[in-house]
């Protein structure tokens, strides 16, 4: 049952990811990426991380992809449709990618460290409560740093995208 759902979501995620890279039109890429994020959030549900699944939908599908579509709407993407891939000199990058992928696949399959089929039993209780307790006690400093990073990015994006006023 679980395996069937995993295979379904994984196949859809891989297909939509391929569409992202291969599509002619950036709008199609953005929509395929949105579908891919939805599949990944379903996989998070399979991994019993419901909070992360909801955050994935809110942040990626809700915020980031809408930002992408706004930018696509603001700028003219028609001239970029004509040529999809970088001209010439692609062979080294392709070889590198194939080597990287084959290496990782072979290592993961041949190693016995990844063969765990049954997860270690979680302690009973409200997992989201425990997650937030850990986040706000042990990881309070990184949390505050992340909020400062978000503030800096907000200010930076406004400054960068503002029209020059002399």
């Amino acid at each position, binding site marked *: 049952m679980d395996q069937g759902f995993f295979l379904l979501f994984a196949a859809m995620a891989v297909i939509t990811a391929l569409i992202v890279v291969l599509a002619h039109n950036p709008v199609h890429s953005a929509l395929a990426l949105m579908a891919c994020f939805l599949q990944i959030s379903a996989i998070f549900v399979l991994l019993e991380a419901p909070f*992360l699944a909801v955050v994935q939908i809110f942040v990626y599908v809700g915020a980031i992809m809408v*930002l992408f579509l706004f930018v696509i709407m603001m*700028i003219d993407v028609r001239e970029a449709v004509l040529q999809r*891939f970088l001209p010439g000199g692609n062979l080294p990058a392709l070889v590198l990618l194939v080597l990287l992928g084959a290496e990782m696949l072979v290592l993961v399959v041949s190693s016995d460290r990844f063969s765990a089929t049954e997860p270690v039993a979680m302690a009973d209780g409200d997992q989201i409560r425990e997650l937030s307790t850990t986040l706000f006690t042990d990881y309070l400093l990184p949390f505050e740093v992340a909020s400062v990073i978000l503030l800096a990015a907000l200010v930076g994006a406004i400054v960068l995208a503002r029209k020059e006023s002399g």
Partner: protein
Amino acid sequence: MVPLWWYIQLSVVLFVIGAAGVLLRRNILVVLMSLELLLNSVNINFIAFGRYYADFRGQIFAIFVIATTAAEVAVALGILVALVRNKSTLKVDDVTVMKG
């Protein structure tokens, strides 16, 4: 249950597809989207390991990765808008000023 290495394989495949997008595509927008794909495949790894070893830190790191990604996308799209306004191009190989 699903074995752990299935999740790792899925994230490997998504990572390679995203890396292909970053290295081979010409359009800056699609390069940025492929970057999102890369970060998401890493998140799958974090959460899968956290689940299979009953450790919350996987999920916590995934939250930080998501926050950093949101910041990165905001800045990157700001730069993109400024670039289109000043040079009116979306092609990666037109923006090689820093390389000389």
